[in-house]
């Protein structure tokens, strides 16, 4: 099977709607097909990977922990819109430190999150075979 480039666009805050969790589940399931997968977090989607999420008060599963598993699934390209962060008063320090282990570099831990401008994101999107928006 030829490898295709897949990008998942995450645009919604977690918990209020089911989009964020659905996207994450689809990403994990699709990881079995060993395609070239990247995730983009834009608009309120940036709240999906904000640190210190605590769902005790709303009785829902805190699936922010699951983003830490993405590296195990060879998903290590997480692009975050700089403009979306800025508009929301957020910075790189407010995001979870998501990492992956680089098999080709003696399993060194490397950051998966990359903050990009919307112009860079436009370039990245144009390189994809498939873009799925949630």
């Amino acid at each position, binding site marked *: 099977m030829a490898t295709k480039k897949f990008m998942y666009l995450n645009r919604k805050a977690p918990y209020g709607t089911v989009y964020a969790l659905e996207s994450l*589940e689809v990403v*994990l*399931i699709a*990881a*079995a097909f060993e395609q070239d997968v990247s995730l983009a977090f834009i608009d309120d989607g940036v709240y999906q990977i904000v640190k210190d999420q605590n769902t005790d008060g709303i009785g829902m*599963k*805190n*699936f922010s*922990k*699951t983003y*830490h*598993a993405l590296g*195990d*699934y060879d998903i290590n390209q997480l692009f975050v819109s700089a403009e979306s962060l800025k508009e929301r008063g957020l910075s790189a320090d407010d995001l979870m430190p998501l990492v992956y282990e680089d098999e080709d570099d003696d399993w060194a831990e490397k950051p998966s999150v990359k903050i990009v401008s919307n112009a860079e994101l436009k370039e990245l999107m144009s390189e994809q075979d498939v873009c799925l928006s949630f």
Partner: protein
Amino acid sequence: MADILGAEVDEEGFLVNLGDWNKEIAVEMAKSDDIDLSEEHWDVINFLRNYFEEYQIAPAVRVLTKAIGKQFGKEKGNSKYLYSLFPYGPGKQGCRFAGLPKPTGCI
């Protein structure tokens, strides 16, 4: 509704309430699959439970295989070894014994 040692299970034998799990339940589930849980089984079961605690998901078999190899030695990091322990699949059967839901993406 079916149960194992008083803990409710679904039609595929997975625990309905993950909090019900204890070692006796795992032993009992294994027994009805004709498996005597060995130390090697427990290594995998404990790994699965820790993984779920940390990431809130059961790992895919590919992820499990790689991680077991890393933690317990290369000779164990392959599906042949894991299937020898869990003939119905390390994901499906292993997760069931570990009291976890079915792995995401496992049909």
